């Protein structure tokens, strides 16, 4: 994201989580967006191009941050981006209904001295709460133009872009906060002693650097220590004396000064009237956070999700199957030889993608958007955090895990809600273990048919136990103390359908633009491999695993290999590989169990892998392959050999 086209204006959306940044982003984004991670991190950003009044803008949605410290990876990344000067203008998105809290971040942005415009989002919510904001006064006291915005209805957005255009022609005069006299004297003194070497190595406003030092910001302290230890000591000494003077802990003496300014600013720009409450939403909410009502609500929501994933998904899937297979067969009538190989490879890749997108991805993405935008997500997290905590997970991991029963792809996308990279990586590693709908079909078709209902239930529960067990072990290995959960519980609200649909589309686009292409390419490769007749070679290569460790017929090797492309292929190809559709004549019950367990647990399918790669980098994808395969080999192997020894 470093290249910058000439004439293009780069805008960064910055604000606290849940302030509606992404709603503004989605409202103006075209039908294409790019997502990626900041170099070397799992912190993701989204960008898009916007055309407005003849001008092209590059709009970057930065991760939501509460402040600009170095302690939180997402905050550090967002701050470094803003300081790098890559953004021409920053739009500070503010939740007007939480204005006083949001202003803490606004003041920090003012101190960074980047040209900015304030978007007073959720202006209508603030009014409902009885908060009247004097935008002109806010402009006067901050130096940044402020506009009322209701992003979900598109109100105020053109004004924002017009203000951005105006700012790019210059004329930004921020009014950064002025602290109490003793603090200002401290800053002044440090400014006089500011080392030239620090100025050259950190080409940003010295006042900002000094404030970061007074705020005990680790990254800046290290930098100062490295360049001029004397200055670093002076800053630390100044901070200590200030803390003693005010009788505050050193850690928050500076932020307390800023907080006082914020409270004062808030008082000057707002008038608060007694509010009128939204009775229905309030009552529903009271029910949902009640232990009984909450769990009841959680159960109902999960059931809804399950039925969407299964019922609807399988229904659509079956509807599509006939025509798609017929289409594939018809290809043989038009092409032959190598052309048929290419065309049918491309076709089956497209079908495989469509087989995920239409039945599973769309309903689940829809569900996910509803969970996020109505405010149900934090309420579910509230109810289940205590339980998940025992397994080293987070209350917010619950939605990805549930979505995982439908399809791993949207589940992995949903992990973006986890701000802490460690929680996110852990959740991403667990998702491929969960039996998605494709693997559930395998469990039902093999275990359900040959092993009975009891065994099937046991396999299903065992699968959950394995997923949670792996998670528990992962959390033991990462020995860092858990900082615990803290999150906003916004009011319940009904988001407009248009907003939800746009969100679903943008996420779907991400899948189509990356994972689908990977699937098509790998299907093409697969078509060539089978054209070249490498079935035998694959069976031979996999023999040590298939017949050695798992004690299955070696002909199964190819079906396991195909399962990597699409899990259902293992099932579909099984009859062909074994030469009979009645599998029980060739496989013992133990062998069927081993096959099911192995298929459910081993390497995630290509769509999952490419999503893992995209969301967390290739190392995470490789790690996931290794982890899944190891667990699958150990558990399935253990079952096979226990049976032999008994």
């Amino acid at each position, binding site marked *: 994201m470093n290249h910058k086209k000439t004439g293009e204006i780069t805008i960064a959306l910055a604000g606290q989580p849940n302030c509606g940044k992404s709603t503004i982003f989605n409202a103006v984004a075209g039908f294409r967006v790019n997502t990626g991670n900041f170099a070397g991190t799992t912190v993701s950003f989204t960008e898009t191009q916007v055309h407005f009044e003849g001008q092209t803008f590059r709009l970057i949605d930065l991760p939501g941050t509460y402040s600009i410290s170095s302690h939180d990876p997402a905050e550090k990344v967002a701050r470094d981006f803003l300081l790098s000067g890559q953004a021409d203008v920053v739009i500070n998105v503010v939740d007007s209904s939480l204005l006083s809290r949001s202003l*803490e971040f606004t003041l920090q942005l003012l101190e960074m001295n980047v040209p900015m415009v304030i978007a007073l989002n959720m202006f209508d919510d603030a009014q409902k709460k009885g908060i009247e904001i004097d935008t002109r006064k806010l402009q006067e006291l901050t130096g940044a133009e402020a506009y009322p915005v209701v992003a979900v209805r598109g109100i105020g957005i053109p004004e924002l872009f017009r203000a951005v255009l105006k700012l790019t022609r210059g004329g930004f005069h921020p009014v950064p906060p002025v602290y109490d006299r003793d603090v200002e004297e401290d800053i002044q003194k440090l400014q006089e002693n500011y080392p030239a070497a620090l100025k050259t190595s950190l080409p940003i406003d010295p006042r900002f650097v000094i404030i970061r030092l007074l705020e005990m910001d680790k990254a800046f302290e290290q930098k100062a220590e490295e360049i001029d230890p004397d200055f670093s000591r002076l800053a630390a000494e100044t901070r200590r004396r200030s803390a003693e003077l005010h009788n505050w*802990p050193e850690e928050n003496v500076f932020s*307390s000064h800023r907080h006082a300014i914020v409270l004062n600013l808030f008082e000057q720009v707002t008038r608060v009237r007694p509010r009128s409450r939204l009775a229905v939403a309030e009552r529903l909410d009271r029910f949902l956070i*009640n232990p009984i009502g909450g769990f009841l609500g959680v159960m109902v929501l999960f059931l809804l999700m399950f039925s969407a994933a299964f019922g609807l998904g399988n229904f659509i899937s079956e509807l599509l199957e006939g025509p798609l297979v017929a289409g594939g067969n018809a290809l043989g009538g038009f092409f032959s030889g190598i052309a048929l190989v290419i065309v049918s490879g491309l076709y089956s890749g497209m079908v495989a993608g469509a087989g995920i997108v239409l039945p599973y991805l769309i309903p689940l993405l829809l569900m996910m958007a509803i969970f996020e935008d109505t405010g149900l997500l934090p309420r579910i997290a509230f109810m289940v*955090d205590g339980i998940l905590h025992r397994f080293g997970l987070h209350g917010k991991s619950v939605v990805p895990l549930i979505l995982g029963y439908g399809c791993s792809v949207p589940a992995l996308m949903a992990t973006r809600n986890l701000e802490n990279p460690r929680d996110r990586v852990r959740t991403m590693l667990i998702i491929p273990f969960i039996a998605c709908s494709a693997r559930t079909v395998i469990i039902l078709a093999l275990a359900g048919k040959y092993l009975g209902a009891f065994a099937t239930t046991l396999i299903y529960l065992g699968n959950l136990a394995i997923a949670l067990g792996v998670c528990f072990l992962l959390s033991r290995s990462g020995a860092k103390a858990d900082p615990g959960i803290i*999150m906003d519980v916004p009011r319940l609200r009904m988001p407009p359908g248009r907003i939800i649909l746009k969100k679903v589309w943008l996420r779907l686009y991400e899948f189509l633009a990356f994972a689908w292409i990977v699937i098509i390419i790998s299907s093409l490769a697969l078509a060539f491999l089978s054209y070249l007749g490498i079935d035998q070679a694959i069976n031979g290569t996999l023999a040590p695993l298939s017949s050695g460790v798992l004690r299955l017929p070696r002909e199964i090797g190819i079906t396991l290999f195909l399962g990597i492309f699409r899990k259902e292929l293992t099932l579909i190809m099984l009859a062909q590989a074994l030469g009979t559709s009645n599998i029980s004549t060739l496989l013992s019950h133990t062998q069927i169990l081993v096959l099911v367990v192995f298929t459910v647990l081993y390497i995630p399918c290509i769509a999952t892998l490419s999503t893992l790669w995209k969301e967390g980098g290739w190392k995470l994808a490789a790690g996931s392959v290794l982890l899944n395969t190891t667990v699958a080999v150990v558990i399935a192997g253990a079952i096979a050999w226990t049976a032999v020894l008994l």
Partner: protein
Amino acid sequence: MTLVEIKEGNVAEIKKLSGGRSFIEKIQGFGLFVGSKVRLERKAPFRGPLLVEDIENDARIMIGRGMAAKVEVEVLESKKS
């Protein structure tokens, strides 16, 4: 007294944030400063988080017990429960 120890329905004022730099940054990011007034709405089952109302901001926040144990408070209004 810490936030974990007060009863559901009680209103308290934050007196001290006793944790390291990153804890303080995090909790202040959610608008909870020394001097803020909060109402403990509910404690989640299975030793889950606490649901707290930030009275000044009219906002609700869920805080894990580990973090809440580092928030020292003084009860202003107690409610029988």
